[in-house]
């Protein structure tokens, strides 16, 4: 079993969904990434998503756009991010990159897959690379032993769900038609979406986009195998950048406690 599957199995054995926080590499500064990853690990993250900032993040809402813009303004480079994570992955839970296709394409998809794996990463999420365009990327990732995580949306067709049957890692469920960002309520489409995926694909389903805090995390966690929290965490960090590690710990620990306390799905 690979590291991602193990992480979901471990959470599942404890009767709770996996907790998957997201941070943007280079925000507030790249030197803070090791401290942030340690804080997220101690707070109880099961998998950590590390964002590689891109100049034109068209799947992201204002919070993650701003984090990416600031990270790039400070000169955050792809090579430096790879170096930064390579020292961390031993002690941390499995880590996956989230980025856009152009930085990967420009780096070279073979080389990027190789270097990401060598840095200890377990997977890769690319929101603007739909499955049908991802064949070369998938091959390169598989050859390197990296999971290319498929995304599904409320609008996804059965043909898409059939196509991702052979995917690895987990399925990233986009909870709303829209971009990333905190929302007050959980979309009613989440449950039917997760059920449709689970009926066709034999992989854990984690849901993200719009989870604001413990209440929504628990609500989503009742139906999904994993809960992804990005904008809410990055927003909290943006409000107190000097205390980023403590803020990250507090935010994710609170979520983890909420998930620990929830009644089991069965």
């Amino acid at each position, binding site marked *: 079993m690979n590291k991602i599957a193990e992480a979901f199995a471990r959470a599942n054995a404890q009767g709770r969904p996996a907790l998957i926080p997201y941070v943007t590499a280079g925000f507030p500064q790249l030197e803070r990434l090791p401290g942030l990853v340690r804080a997220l690990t101690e707070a109880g993250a099961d998998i950590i998503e590390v964002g590689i900032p891109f*100049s034109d993040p068209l799947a992201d809402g204002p919070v993650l756009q701003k984090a990416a813009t600031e990270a790039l303004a400070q000169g955050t480079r792809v090579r430096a991010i790879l170096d930064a994570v390579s020292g961390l992955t031993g002690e941390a839970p499995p880590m996956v990159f989230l980025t856009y296709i152009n930085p990967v*394409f*420009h780096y070279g998809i073979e080389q990027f897959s190789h270097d990401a794996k060598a840095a200890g990463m377990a997977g890769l999420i690319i929101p603007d690379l*739909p499955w*049908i365009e991802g064949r070369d990327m998938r091959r390169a990732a598989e050859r390197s032993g990296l999971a290319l995580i498929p*995304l599904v949306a409320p609008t996804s067709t059965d043909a898409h769900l059939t196509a991702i049957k052979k995917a690895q890692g987990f399925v990233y469920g986009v909870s709303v038609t829209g971009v990333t960002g905190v929302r007050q309520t959980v979309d009613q489409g989440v449950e039917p979406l997760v059920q449709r995926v689970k009926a066709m694909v034999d992989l854990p389903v984690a849901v993200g986009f719009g989870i604001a805090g413990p209440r929504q995390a628990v609500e989503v966690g009742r139906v999904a195998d994993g809960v992804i929290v990005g904008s809410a965490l990055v927003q909290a960090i943006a409000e107190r950048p000097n205390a980023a590690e403590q803020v990250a710990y507090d935010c994710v620990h609170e979520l983890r406690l909420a998930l620990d306390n929830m009644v089991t799905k069965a």
Partner: protein
Amino acid sequence: MATKKVPDRFGRFGPFGGRYVPETLMPAVDALEHAYQEARRDSGFRRDLGELLKDYVGRPTPLRRADQMSQAVGFDVYLKREDLNHTGAHKINNTIGQVLLARRMGKTRIIAETGAGQHGVATATAAALFGLKAEIYMGAEDVKRQALNVYRMKLLGAQVHPVESGTRTLKDATNEAIRDWVTNVRDTFYVIGSVVGPHPYPMMVRDFQSVIGKEARRQMLKVTGDLPTHIVASVGGGSNSMGIFYPFRHDAVQLIGVEAAGEGVETGRHAASIQVAEPGILHGSLSYLLQDEDGQIQPAHSISAGLDYPGVGPEHAYFHHTGRAQYVAIRDDQALEAFHQLSRWEGIIPALESAHAVAWVIQEAHRLKREGARVLINLSGRGDKDVDQVFLYEQGGHHE
């Protein structure tokens, strides 16, 4: 010079094109492709479009020899007068087609991106014609620079959303329009303004703009009894150039796309993505992009807002790749000079975009004369929109 039929069913022009959009949008681009394929086979749709182009847009646009310019350069130059379209540029050929398609698909909400505002105005116009509501995304920087076009869009009943993210220009407006589309995909039609974006947009916009080349081919044969030796058109995203090139693609005619060299390609302040020819993926397709060593998109620069885009349509990348078209670049100062020249020679103030095409013909005049060229320029838009900016620029305040 034969080229394969492109795009293929995956929206590929050779290695370029494709559909790089979030999974949420994939069903929408599929549905759009099917709806478009159906519409273009439907004689009713073609008839409606044809009538609108004739009676509302004012087509066919004239094609005429530019007498004084021809005399000055020493060979025949012809102008295809897209500046005489309703709203003053070729943009409306496309927006009428797309909004007609949106109505056919039962979409109730129209969105678009715009740079200087030309495509925004053309979209707002088409939406007004059909009684639909248009919302236009425009970089906050451009909103400031193009206040009159913002007012025009509002007059036409459109809502303009200033975009504050990134460089606050066209590429950011496009990002924001895509974000809106992802969010409101079920009832919203996204009217893209050039031969860019995910399949089927590059093909569809090309087809709608091909009316330029189809008319021009017929008119050249009628006026001169022959085809031109060269067709010259400016390239930003590339819709006016693809529109005039495409119907000539199987002819022995040299196709010249003129990019914006801005302050000079070597200065880095330009918009000439094909000159640099660095492949990349942005806004839904793989093409040539201005980008840094990490694949981060670099801001473009041109005195002409319509050329100020860091990418180019995938079919142009393909034409460059196969050698079917030749791509060159003209600096801001050369375009300005041509802006003046054409105004005096022909009594036609060209858009700064179109002035780039005129400038290349002037630059290459000696060689073209020697070759006995017969040159057709696509005069894609009128320059009234640029008069203020040129005035300010020449007062000395180098105005972006």
